[in-house]
C-alpha cells in the first residue's frame, strides 16, 4: 500500500466518523445529567433537512448551520418539555421523537430531494468534533459547573437539596444534545454526502446511542469508540476491495455486539458504579420530594 492510498483511507475514516462523534458527544452530555434521549436519529434527520433546505433557499452555509442548530434546539426543547415538566417516560418520549423526526424531515425535504448543492470541505468539522470532545471533557472534569451537571445525573435529590436547579441543568443538557445531533445531521447533508434523501442518516443515531454506553459515559472514550466503529467499517471496505476474504456482515453488527457486551458487564450492579453510568439515568425528578 503506497502512502497516497493510506492517506486516502485515513481521510475517508475521518469524514465517515465525524457525524458519530457529534451525535454521541451530544447524547453523552444529555445522559450525564440523567436524561436518556432516544430521539437522536430523529433530531439528526431534522437537522440534516433544515440545513439542506436553508442552504438551497438562501445559499448561505452559515445560515444553514444556524437554522439547523435551532431546529435541534426546538426538537430537543419539545422533548425537554415533555420529560422535565410533564414528566413523561423518557424512553417512550425519545422513541416518539425519533419517529416524529423521521416523518417531519421527509415532509420538509419532499421537494428538495435530488437538488444539487456544492458540498462543503469536511475537515473544519472534523477538527471541530475533536475540539468539542476536548471541551466537554474539560467541562465535566475541570469546572465546577461540570461537577454540578454530573451531580444532577448521579443524584437529583441531593443536588436539589444543595440548591441546584435540577430542571435547568437537565434542560441545558438536553438542548446541548439536540444541537449536537442537528450538527451531526447538517454535516451529513452538507459535507459528507451533500444531498438530501429521506432517512439518509440510516441508523447512525442508534450507533451514537450505543457508543455512549460502549464508552461508559466518558467523553474521551466516546471519541475512541467512534473511531473504532467508523474505522472498522471503512477498513472492512478496503479489505473487500483488496480481495481479502472475511465475513463483512460481522463487521456491520460489530458496534452493536460490542455495546451488548458492555451492557452485560454493566448489568452487574457493583461494576455499574465503576463504569460510571449516571445513577439517575431515566429517573424522572419530582420537585419537593
Amino acid at each position: 500500500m503506497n502512502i497516497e492510498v493510506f492517506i486516502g483511507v485515513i481521510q475517508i475514516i475521518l469524514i465517515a466518523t465525524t457525524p458519530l462523534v457529534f451525535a454521541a458527544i451530544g447524547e453523552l452530555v444529555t445522559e450525564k445529567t440523567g436524561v436518556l434521549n432516544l430521539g437522536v436519529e430523529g433530531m439528526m434527520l431534522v437537522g440534516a433537512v433544515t440545513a439542506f433546505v436553508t442552504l438551497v433557499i438562501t445559499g448561505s452555509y452559515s445560515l444553514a448551520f444556524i437554522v439547523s442548530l435551532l431546529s435541534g434546539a426546538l426538537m430537543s426543547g419539545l422533548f425537554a418539555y415533555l420529560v422535565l415538566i410533564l414528566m413523561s417516560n423518557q424512553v417512550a418520549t425519545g422513541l416518539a421523537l425519533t419517529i416524529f423526526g423521521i416523518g417531519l424531515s421527509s415532509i420538509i425535504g419532499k421537494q428538495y430531494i435530488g437538488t444539487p448543492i456544492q458540498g462543503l470541505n469536511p475537515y473544519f468539522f472534523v477538527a471541530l468534533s475533536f475540539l468539542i470532545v476536548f471541551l466537554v471533557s474539560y467541562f465535566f472534569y475541570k469546572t465546577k459547573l461540570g461537577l454540578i451537571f454530573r451531580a444532577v445525573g448521579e443524584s437529583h435529590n441531593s443536588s436539589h437539596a444543595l440548591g441546584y436547579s435540577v430542571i435547568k441543568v437537565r434542560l441545558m443538557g438536553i438542548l446541548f444534545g439536540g444541537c449536537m445531533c442537528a450538527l451531526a445531521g447538517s454535516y451529513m447533508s452538507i459535507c459528507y454526502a451533500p444531498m438530501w434523501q429521506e432517512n439518509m442518516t440510516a441508523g447512525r443515531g442508534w450507533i451514537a446511542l450505543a457508543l455512549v454506553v460502549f464508552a461508559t459515559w466518558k467523553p474521551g472514550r466516546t471519541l475512541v469508540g467512534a473511531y473504532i466503529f467508523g474505522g472498522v467499517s471503512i477498513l472492512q471496505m478496503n479489505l473487500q476491495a483488496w480481495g481479502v476474504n472475511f465475513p463483512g456482515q460481522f463487521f456491520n453488527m460489530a458496534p452493536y455486539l460490542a455495546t451488548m457486551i458492555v451492557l452485560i458487564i454493566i448489568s452487574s450492579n457493583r461494576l455499574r458504579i465503576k463504569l460510571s453510568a449516571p445513577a439517575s439515568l431515566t429517573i424522572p425528578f419530582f420537585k419537593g420530594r
Partner: protein
Amino acid sequence: MIRILLLITAILGFSIGSANADPKKVGFIYIGPPGDHGWTYMHDVGRQYMESQLGDAVTSTYIENVPENADAVRAIRKLAASGHDLIFTTSFNYMDQTLEVAKEFPDVKFEHATGYMRAPNVSTYSARFYEGRTISGHIAGKMTKSNVIGYIASFPIPEVVRGINAFYLAASKVNPDIQIKIIWAFTWYDPGKESDAANTLINQGADILVQHTDTFAPCQAAEKAGVLAFGQASNQEEFCPNAHLTAIEDIWGPYYAQRAKAVVDGTWAEKDTWDGMAEGMVVMSPYNAKLMPTDLIQEAVEMEIAIKDGSLHPFTGPIYDQAGELRVAEGEVADDLMMATMDWYVQGIDGELPQ
C-alpha cells in the same frame, strides 16, 4: 409516522372506496422511500402508471421504508387485512414474509418482486437487469484508463451476483486486463455508506463506478472525484452530469397495469414473469454523448438490438467459475434456473463471494 398516516388513509380509503363502484385496492410495500430516485422511485412510477391506465377501476396505497424483517409481515398483513385485493412486495428479502401472509389470506393476490417462491396466490416477477449490465460492462471495458472498475454491491443474492458476472464477462471480453473491485455494503439504502464505498474504490484506483444500491450517492461521489459512473434503476444524469455514462432503468408500469387489470377482470393466476429489454421492462438511459465516443454509443445501441432479438445472450458459453469448472459449455447459454440461483463468481473475479 408516514407509515401510520398511510395506514390510516388506507383504512379510510377502504370505507370510502367500498361505497363507490367498488374499485380494486392495490397495495405496495417499498423498501425505501419513493424519493430515492432509484429502485423504490421506479416502483412508485410504475404504481402511478398503473393508476393512470386503469383509472377508477383501482386505487392504490403504499407503505414505504419497510425493513426486510418481521416488520414486513406486519406491514403486508395490514394491507391484506384492510381489504387490498392485490399486494406487490418489492424487495427480494420480503420472500418468506410474503408467503407467510399469503397463507393467511388465500383470497388476496400477492406479487413478490425478484423472488422465486410461489404459491397459488403468490406470483413472482423480475426484470432481466443483467442484460443492461452486459452493456454497462462493454462500455466500462472500453472507457476505463486505469483498468480498475469499482463495483458497489448490496447483498450477495443471485440477482446481484448475476449482475456482477454479466458485467465482468462483457468488460473482460473487450478488455482482458480489466480488474473488478467489489465492495459489499450489506445495505440497499445508506447514502453515507454508499459514498464511503465509492470513495474507497476511487482511492484504490477505480476510474469507473458501478452500483447495485439504491441512492445516487456513488454517482455524486464519482462526479466530485472526476471519475465515471453508471446510474442505477433510474436515469440519474441530473445528479452527476459529468460522470453519468448511462443507467439501467426498471420499467414496471405496464406489468403493474396488466396484473391489476387481471384482478379487476378476475383472470389473475399465479405465474412467474421475467422480462427484459425485448419486453421493455429493462431500458438503457440515453448514452452520455459528452463522455462517450460516437462509435461506442453505436456499439451499445447495436448490443441492445442484439439482446432484444436474442442473437446476444449475456451468459453465452464457455463460462468457467472461479474454481475453473465449466458452468456453461461452448455454444450454449445459461438457462433461467442457473441464472436465478447464481451463487458463484465467473473466472477472473478476485475475492470470495460472501455467503
